[in-house]
């Protein structure tokens, strides 16, 4: 599996280089595309060229790869004028990004090989089990709101990972779990996730599809719907984990007034204040992403976390060094970092 992925990516890069090369031959003729003043026709001629590379078939692609390999070798010689293969002014960004990529990939690899990494205690996550326990004692349901964004938001996807774990816990305690959903395309995802959680816990019969409730795509109609659930069914634990917007304060307030234990988590910074003041626990920004690694123990998530921790150490070092150098009037380092 891993090797197919690498091959695919490699193939993609080669294809791009090939396209690039085929185009070079054409683009050089009428002059660089950036020539000022050439508005309509120049733009048309440039954008027309890729179609040639699309239709010219695999032979051209192959030869393109070969030739572009040559030209890649030539990049060391200082390119004159417009045609260059690397922008030296952007070296600072290239280096920072490359270092970070390496850190992430190395740790993902290690985690994939079975290395286990420590993750600090995250109080909000430990509280989830406690909240579910209390709901069970009181004989009341647990409410899980996965945000109001669609599946293209990574927070919604990560929310599903957490939902899977919550479903497992809930199934074990045999407590109902209500999941209101704001986007039609999230419904099948939530259904599968919860069903799988119940299955993993050994209670597939306890899964109730009626508890995954699509309320509305409209933000405030959805909010009013969730409010209704809180007031009628009185869940004892409210979990808000995902991408939230203006509705956060309405949800948190209603939940607070019903006396439920509330745990929230989002990377939408602007909504955090409302969760912080009205919820018992709040996962702030990156903590939300750490939550998925914490709960799922998935290698790629744990490795990523470790990689960005190392990057933070490097950045902290750079910040301290930079500040000290500035204090003594040495500005070379700071100037090198200026984005151009």
């Amino acid at each position, binding site marked *: 599996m891993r090797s197919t992925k690498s091959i695919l990516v490699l193939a993609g890069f080669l294809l791009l280089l090939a396209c690039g090369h085929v185009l070079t031959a054409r683009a050089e003729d009428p002059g660089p595309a950036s020539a*000022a*003043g*050439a*508005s*309509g026709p120049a*733009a048309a001629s440039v*954008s027309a060229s890729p179609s040639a590379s699309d239709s010219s078939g695999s032979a051209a692609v192959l030869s393109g790869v070969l030739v572009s390999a040559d030209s890649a070798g030539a990049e060391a010689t200082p390119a004159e004028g417009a045609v260059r293969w690397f922008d030296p002014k952007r070296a600072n960004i290239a280096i920072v990004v490359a270092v970070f990529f390496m850190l992430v990939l190395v740790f993902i690899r290690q985690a994939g090989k079975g290395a286990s990494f420590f993750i600090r205690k995250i109080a909000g996550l430990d509280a989830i089990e406690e909240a579910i326990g209390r709901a069970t004692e009181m004989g009341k349901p647990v409410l899980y709101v996965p945000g109001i964004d669609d599946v293209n938001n990574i927070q919604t996807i990560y929310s599903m990972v957490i939902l899977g774990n919550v479903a497992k816990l809930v199934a074990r305690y045999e407590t109902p779990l209500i999941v209101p959903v704001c986007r039609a395309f999230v419904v099948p995802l939530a259904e599968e996730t919860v069903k799988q959680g119940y299955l993993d816990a050994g209670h597939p019969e306890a899964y109730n599809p009626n508890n995954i409730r699509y309320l509305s795509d409209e933000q405030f109609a959805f909010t009013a719907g969730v409010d209704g659930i809180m007031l009628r069914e009185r869940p004892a634990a409210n979990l808000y984990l995902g991408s939230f917007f203006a509705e956060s304060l309405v949800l948190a307030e209603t939940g607070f*007034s*019903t*006396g439920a234990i509330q745990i929230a988590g989002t990377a939408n*910074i*602007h909504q955090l204040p409302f969760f912080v003041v009205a919820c018992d626990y709040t996962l702030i920004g990156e903590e939300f992403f750490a939550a998925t690694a914490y709960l799922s123990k998935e290698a790629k998530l744990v490795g990523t976390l470790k990689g960005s921790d190392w990057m933070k150490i490097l950045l902290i070092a750079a910040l301290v060094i930079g500040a000290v150098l500035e204090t003594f009037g040495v500005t070379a380092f700071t100037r090198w970092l200026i*984005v*151009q």
Partner: protein
Amino acid sequence: MEKLDRRYIFLVILLVVLVPLIAPVGLPVRVSREVQSAYDAVAGVPDGSKVYFAADYDPSTMPELHPMALATLDHLFSKNCKVIGACLWPGGPPLLEDALRRIGELRFGKKYGVDFVNLGYKPGNEVVMVSVGRSIPATFPADFYGTPIEKLEIMKGVENLDDVSMIVNISAGYPGTKEWVQQVQSRYHVSIASGCTAVSAPEYYPYFQSGQLAGLLGGLSGAAEYEKLVGKPGTATRGMDAQSLGHLVIIAFIILGNIFYFASKKKAP
């Protein structure tokens, strides 16, 4: 606390906003550093040069952002700048059109297609920003009305963002100022002044401090300050009294709520 019908709270809020609108006091508006910088940045643009006006908002935030659009446009047209407007929020183009016509055409007698243009809307957020930096004609082959842009005088000689002297961005969230900074400011070195909702303003302070933003108008008070700078008080200035009283009431609610809470907690055990 749950027993209190929140409709009483709603009623208080309605009165608090209504009364100062009907009987204003006219408290003096003070200009903050962020707004002054934005004003200075616009003032520093060469007279008659072209400015890209990125109107990235829609009716949901119109009361906050439309006054900013009007005030900054007033400033730009008073310098005879040529304004190229475009939107990344689908709800935006008619609002942009309203602002351009109201200020450009009615207040300054400017002509559509010569002194200002509305390029309309394109989906794709960051993709459009990068694409505009590369080629405006390829990204916006026609304006809001479908007129090919080769036929518009204002677009003559405008290939990409190198040909504008600054970007004024009115931003309601995503896509908006953050993305313009990330994708355009550092890539194409254009100066950006941002007028944003109060909700997103705190997130943009780091960009202002780092110089990635030339200035920052946050929310209705930012708009009122800009209105003061251009000397044309509008709806933002008019709303400032209600805004002041509203904030006072919220503070009172926070304090009262906590007094009741702690008092009832003491009684409970």
